[in-house]
């Protein structure tokens, strides 16, 4: 469905964030993109969201390079970055509604989709609030909700549970599971390995901008004699377990 082929990303400050990365995301799967801080996860998700360009290589959507049709491609993508990009001057409801309108829905369709998503994610109580009054967990939920309004085929969740309380993480996980039931393709970047273990079908581990492993979760565990994902991750990344506080 979506492929990243030989992607190299060098930023203006000469930092090489991606070093010849290739992988494919299959429809209806949750793909976990794992790596330590600075490994290139966010760069990857930004590129797949159509936000950032790559220095060389290709992003293919249904076999076509998105470069010439990036604006059109973005219609198919729901992107939730790490930090809030909500409009703090309008209500949660309006943030969701606007995203529908921005993606070509007419006002009736956008209202219907907004109400549906609000009900689906149990957000009725917060619909009329301003995003600046919400907690971190609710902001993440609103961000996911906003991305879902135009009914995208491909959803990118960039560390959606980072810094959240355990019970809120579980709530977000339930939302992600629900999206999987709807056959959405989801790219989940995370450095919480329990999260990846629970939710993902395919695991891509990247380090220093390179793919060090790309296989299904089950195949990965089998290849490493049923060790935990955390043990496999540390082995592959070559880091001391004690250093990986967040893992």
């Amino acid at each position, binding site marked *: 469905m979506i492929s990243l082929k030989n992607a190299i*990303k060098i*930023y*203006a400050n000469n930092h090489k964030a991606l070093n010849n990365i290739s992988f494919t995301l299959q429809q209806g799967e949750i793909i976990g993109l794992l790596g330590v801080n600075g490994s290139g996860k966010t760069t990857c998700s930004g590129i797949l*969201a*159509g*936000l*950032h*360009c790559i220095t060389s290589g290709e992003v293919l959507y249904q076999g076509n390079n998105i*470069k010439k049709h*990036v*604006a*059109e*491609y*973005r*219609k198919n*993508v729901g*992107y939730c*970055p790490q*930090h*809030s*990009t*909500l*409009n*703090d*001057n*309008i209500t949660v409801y309006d943030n969701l509604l*606007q995203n529908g*309108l*921005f*993606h*070509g829905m007419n006002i009736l369709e956008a209202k219907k989709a907004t109400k549906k998503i609000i009900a689906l994610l149990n957000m009725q109580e917060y619909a009329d609030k301003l995003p600046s009054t919400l907690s971190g967990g609710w902001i993440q939920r609103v961000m996911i909700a906003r991305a879902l309004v135009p009914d995208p085929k491909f959803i990118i969740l960039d560390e959606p549970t980072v810094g959240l309380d355990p019970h809120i993480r579980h709530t977000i996980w339930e939302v992600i599971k629900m999206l999987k039931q709807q056959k959405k393709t989801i790219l989940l970047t995370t450095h919480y390995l329990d999260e990846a273990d629970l939710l993902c079908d395919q695991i891509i581990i990247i380090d220093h901008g390179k793919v060090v492993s790309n296989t299904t979760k089950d195949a990965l565990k089998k290849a490493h004699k049923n060790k935990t994902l955390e043990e496999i991750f540390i082995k592959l990344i070559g880091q001391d377990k004690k250093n990986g506080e967040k893992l």
Partner: protein
Amino acid sequence: MNYIKIISHMMRIDLLNIKSSIKDKLIDALIWGSCTLIITAYVLPSFGLVNFGAFQAASVLISVIGFETYNQLFMLVMNIEQKKYLFYLFTLPIPVALIWLQKIISYTINALILSSFMILVSKLVLQDQMPLTQINWPLLFLALLVSCFFFACFLLLMVSFVKKTSQVEHMFMRVVFPLWFFGGFQFSWNTLFSINKYAAYGALISPYTYATEAVRVSFFGQKGFLPYWTCISFMLIAGCLLATIGHVKLKKRLALT
């Protein structure tokens, strides 16, 4: 995808933002503009200086646009620095260039409201010193509209240079303030030319020169000022050029598609 539709939705949101913040901005403009005009029209003449209240009013109409540009610069740099709402707009199904175009339209409208309000403030403060019947209103409106458009474009260029909010102040003091003060805030370009022609040629670098001269033509007639249509043409062409440079630089810096 109908880009005009998306832009109109973005405009609607921006107009709501303008509506919610305009009251405070008008109060700020009222206080600053009134103080400036009271001093120039009523205090300075008591020292034997020439009363140039109406002349100064033209500067005030443009200066308020410049100050608003500074406010918007701060907000925009903060938005980019903290990767806020603007980054969401960059993920919408619309080319980035059109997002900037929409922002330029939005900033133009915002500045035009403030600048138009300053006509009222000027009249209230200056009373008979500013006869409204002498003003060429179509020329004034066009001069303000084009000035607002120019400064919105100039804003985009400044954003492309300023990476952190802590640098905004430096940009203002080192670049904007000299351009403003030497851009005919208190004198016409011809006056400067009669004193020092090199300084006058230097003042042509400042966009404030063209903006204030165009407004003064609409107030006092063409005689004694830079040609009106030259000023308008300069601001339109330079505005488009600066916005393009700003867009290209930002696209590269932020690695946008």
